[in-house]
């Protein structure tokens, strides 16, 4: 078992000295940004033009759904959100710290990325994880 929590996804980076951040891979040919490492761009097909970039921690809510039924053991309701980060990278995650009520949620609302324990979920070896979430930006 790891002494430190692990990242829930490969594009979430946990530096030993510094704050967690999300990493994108940007195509030097066309500018498209992807989550996760790759060598070929699926927008323009350029090869070996990818470089790692630190993604912004703020963005805007693009679309969402309020999930009331999920798989057994998953707490509901929760808000599944698509966010456009300030550099244009689209990312999906839970929108937290807001009522799961369509009257309260506004398209385009500013959000910020926050990092926290992955809802207490552990893997079979007992490792803890850090995940990212979105919350309304004040």
């Amino acid at each position, binding site marked *: 078992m790891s002494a430190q929590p692990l990242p829930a996804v490969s594009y979430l980076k946990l530096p030993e000295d510094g704050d967690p951040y999300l990493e994108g891979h940007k195509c030097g040919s066309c500018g498209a940004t992807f989550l996760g490492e790759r060598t070929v761009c699926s927008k323009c097909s350029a090869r070996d033009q990818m470089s790692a970039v630190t993604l912004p921690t703020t963005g805007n809510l693009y*679309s*969402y759904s309020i999930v009331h039924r999920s798989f057994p053991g998953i707490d509901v309701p929760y808000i599944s959100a698509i966010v456009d980060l300030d550099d244009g990278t*689209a990312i999906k995650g839970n929108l937290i710290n807001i009522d799961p009520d369509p009257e309260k949620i506004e398209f385009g609302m500013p959000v910020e990325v926050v990092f926290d324990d992955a*809802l207490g979920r552990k893997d079979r070896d007992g490792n803890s994880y850090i995940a990212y979430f979105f919350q309304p930006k004040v």
Partner: protein
Amino acid sequence: MSDAYVVGVDMIKFGRFPDQTVPQIGSQSALLALDDCGLTIQDMEALYCGNLGQASGMVGQRILQEIGQTGIPVVNVSNACATGATAFREAWASVKAGLYDIVLAVGVEQMGKGLLGGAGGATGIPKEGLLGSGTMPAVFAEAGMEHSSKYGTTFEQFAKVSVKNHHHSTMNPKAMYQIETPLDTVMNAEMISYPNTKLMCSVNVDGSAAAVIASEAKAKELGLMNRAIKVRASVLTSDPWQERDLVMPDVNSCTRKAVAAAYEMAGLGPDDIDLVELHDCFATAEILHYENLGLCGDGEAGRMIDDGEVALGGRVPVNVSGGLLSKGHPLGATGIANIYEVSTHLRGEAGERQVQGARIGLTHVIGLGSACGIHILEKA
């Protein structure tokens, strides 16, 4: 190249058949389609079989083991919810290419109950409910909410799709359900993923559908032109790159790309289409496809459902079969079942739900991930 024609087509009544095997379920529609044109499996030169659940299970060969092992080539096809349409298209292409004169396409599925999608990675921890939702109701809710954001489409307008399709299915004896669901019933049903309630999600059912496709020369030789349906266009696309599509599966651009190619292939436009069977896997999805298929302008889909233009008797009836929402959605069968539905109207054999004077119809399916299959059909 000679045209290709659907000369026999049929489906079984969709339902739940836990005591049958997948090949047994598929065999029934294969025999019905052969009966529809008075032929037997001995007359078929190839079989194209669509199935998802047993994609590695040689379902096509096992269907022949049920109805006649003639030694013909069998191709088993898997392409998410576009599986049936892909099997049909491969069959069509083989006839168009002159490889065979007459072939059989079968789509079949045996479904479990419950939510589809949302599987996490093989390592680490489950991501469902941690990094949003990968369940199909949520994914298609997010696609619908994108439309709400752009055009103000309301929960009520999405719900009206379900009211319409459930109403249509009361006239379709082969639909899973024949039950009216008024607007308040749809909107007050269990919320699955806002804005999709349970009655706005397609029904998981078992089913199969099949079609016999022949070259023009073969159809004439067999005396089958009388009820033949001409395939005016067959198009398959995958999802072209879009800025959000790796986190938000895009059902729009692959549909728009496919329908543009289909209209061009057929030499037709949306105004020529008399009825449409489109991929209403969720009520939110149907709204998007009115615009994607060019049935109305961008931003007009909400008005279209409000005005009844897409209901039976309206300007361009959509999903008069009851659609996936009420007829049911056996994934691998759906793409051929909607070809059966349109063909039945073009033949003037749809009974109570007949679209009067229907001459040209369009079928559309989406396999998330993504694939879009479109066919334009015309009475020969």
